[in-house]
């Protein structure tokens, strides 16, 4: 396939997915719950009939659901107006932006560490197949797969706080709030150790498994035999011929995993009371703060879809078979 066609197809697919998410969001929060005013301003707020009517007009709720209300909502969302959180009494957009950085920091650290460790370990396991390294790595990834994320978090929390004196939650100790950066940074790092470790263990198993099967598949290819026949040592073959080919699926996996990454963040932030989007999502769920839930879902879904698209574009630069042609 032509590279341009490939890209266009991927972009088109992403747009369609985006559209589906937007429509889903609209249907779930505006159409299904019945009384739309309640859906917008909250169930427990007492307001007069006049105010209700004013709100009805403001949100266009007196007009037909489709297309009028839908288009109004679409316009508001595209301007970043995601409504007002019931529990926090603040615009949802503002709340989301404030939490986004913390979550990206946590997810980013966890992903980078798990990719490096997972790829290295998977490479070793696949190369030295059926040896102790391989069996050990497989056992690890199997158990990492079967452990519920939040439970792993709880165990690490209990162990880390009891034996290592690590903080049990949050990002920064209350006493350090507002202190200069050189006191805050080590404190933040201290707080990040356990949540990052949890995420790393969680993600690593999968990268390892994919790398292992990918490297095994590549090492079974004919061009590896050619490289060996050329007189290269195993290490040379691995480094020059196998690594790049085997890494290609990892790029795709990072993209596919983004959704999974978000799940991990929700659990880990909940367990460690880490002040990010995930924790906020859980709080919104418990407090039944629907505008917040809706906004967070929209933000997460859109980010994951866009990141997926970026990974697809990146892939075309890495694989010459897609790049040219």
């Amino acid at each position, binding site marked *: 396939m032509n590279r341009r066609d490939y890209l266009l197809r991927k972009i088109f697919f992403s747009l369609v997915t985006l559209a*589906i998410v937007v429509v889903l969001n609209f249907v779930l929060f505006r159409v299904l719950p019945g009384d739309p005013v309640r859906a917008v301003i909250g169930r427990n707020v007492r307001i007069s009939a006049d105010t209700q009517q004013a709100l009805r007009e403001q949100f266009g709720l007196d007009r037909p659901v489709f297309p009028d209300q839908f288009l109004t909502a679409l316009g508001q969302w595209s301007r970043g107006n995601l409504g007002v959180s019931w529990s926090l009494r603040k615009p949802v957009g503002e709340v989301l932006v404030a939490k986004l950085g913390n979550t990206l920091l946590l997810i980013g650290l966890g992903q980078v560490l798990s990719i490096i460790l997972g790829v290295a370990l998977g490479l070793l396991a696949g190369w030295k*197949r059926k040896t102790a390294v391989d069996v050990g790595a497989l056992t690890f990834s199997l158990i990492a797969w*079967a452990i*519920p994320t939040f439970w792993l978090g709880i165990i690490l929390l209990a162990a880390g706080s009891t034996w290592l004196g690590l903080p049990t939650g949050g990002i920064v100790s209350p006493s350090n709030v507002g202190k200069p950066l050189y006191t805050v940074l080590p404190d933040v790092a201290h707080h990040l150790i356990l949540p990052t470790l949890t995420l790393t263990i969680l993600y690593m198993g999968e990268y390892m498994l994919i790398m292992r099967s990918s490297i095994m598949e590549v090492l*079974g290819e004919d061009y590896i035999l050619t490289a060996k026949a050329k007189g290269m040592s195993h290490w040379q073959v691995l480094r020059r011929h196998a690594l790049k080919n085997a890494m290609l699926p990892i790029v795709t996996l990072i993209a596919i995993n983004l959704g999974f990454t978000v799940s991990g963040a929700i659990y880990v932030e909940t367990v460690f009371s880490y002040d990010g989007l995930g924790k906020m999502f*859980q709080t919104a769920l*418990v407090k039944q703060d629907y505008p917040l839930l809706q906004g967070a879902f929209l933000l997460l879904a859109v980010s994951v879809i866009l990141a997926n698209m970026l990974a697809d574009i990146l892939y075309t630069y890495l694989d010459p078979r897609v790049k040219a042609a």
Partner: protein
Amino acid sequence: MNPRWTLLKRNLLDFWQTFRRNRMGLVGAFLVLTAVLAAVFAPLLSPYTPTETMRDAGGRALTFAPPSVHAPLGTDDAGRDVWTQLVYGARISLTVGFLAGFIAMFIGSLFGITAGYFGGWVDNLLMRITDVLLVIPDLPLILVLVATVRQLDLKVSPLVILVLVIGLLYWTSTARLIRSQVLSIKERQYVYRARAIGAGNWHIVRRHILPQIMPLIVANTVLILSTAILIESGLAFLGLGDPTQPSWGTMLNFAFDRNAVTNGAWWFYLPPGLAIIWATLGCVLLGNVLEEMLNPRLASHHLEGEQSIVTHPPAPFPAREGGVAKSDGG
């Protein structure tokens, strides 16, 4: 005897013999079986009920009591026996997991067979749907769906909602797997022959395709069960379970919310987690072994050690400095 039955019996025997030789599969089967038995015979495994509060001689509730003869896994914040909750929790966790897993398997197989067998726009449409579901982050989607459904005030148990949401979202991998398998079976000679003699679609699917992919479906279902059990535990941990019918995940939700960690009540938060691992690990081991037996992987690759030479060369060659590369015609 019915020849088809003989054939089936021979295959099953063959299967059992291979399976028995596989230690991983046996361990998996053991884990799954014990979990199921614990769930079925829960009342026999404990003298208490899960909601019963244990009290000391003075009538005070024994809260956060460490393991003892009376309560082998201690008590929780309300003085209830953790072991009893654990075996009764198995019922909820496994039932939700199994039901959700079966729904996912059923939808996945149905879509996979339809897409693979009919091809064309049906295939295209179904595969695009799975693509979309793959891209949307699953946990936020589930949480949002559950929240919405709860808002509707339907008078159903939260567990039913969990079963349906998990079942209706986790069928995509099955659908893809089944589809590719059906695609390859469809091209086989006997299917062509069946079609040539005028067999209908339903007949071909039922008589030729379904028997071929059944083993795959079984293996995949076992794998999906593990996913379903894990997802259920996560959702229950986030508070979406039924507090009146606690699963392992709900137990962990209680333990976490009621500060079992800070109280050092490890007997409250360790066992449910280990139970979840027990069941999921069992399903994964069992499923992987079944899959591998039906679909053997690559035997070896090109960098797997050096080729061994067992022969003993008769006598060392005198002129061999630095290998052949340097010896011209020597």
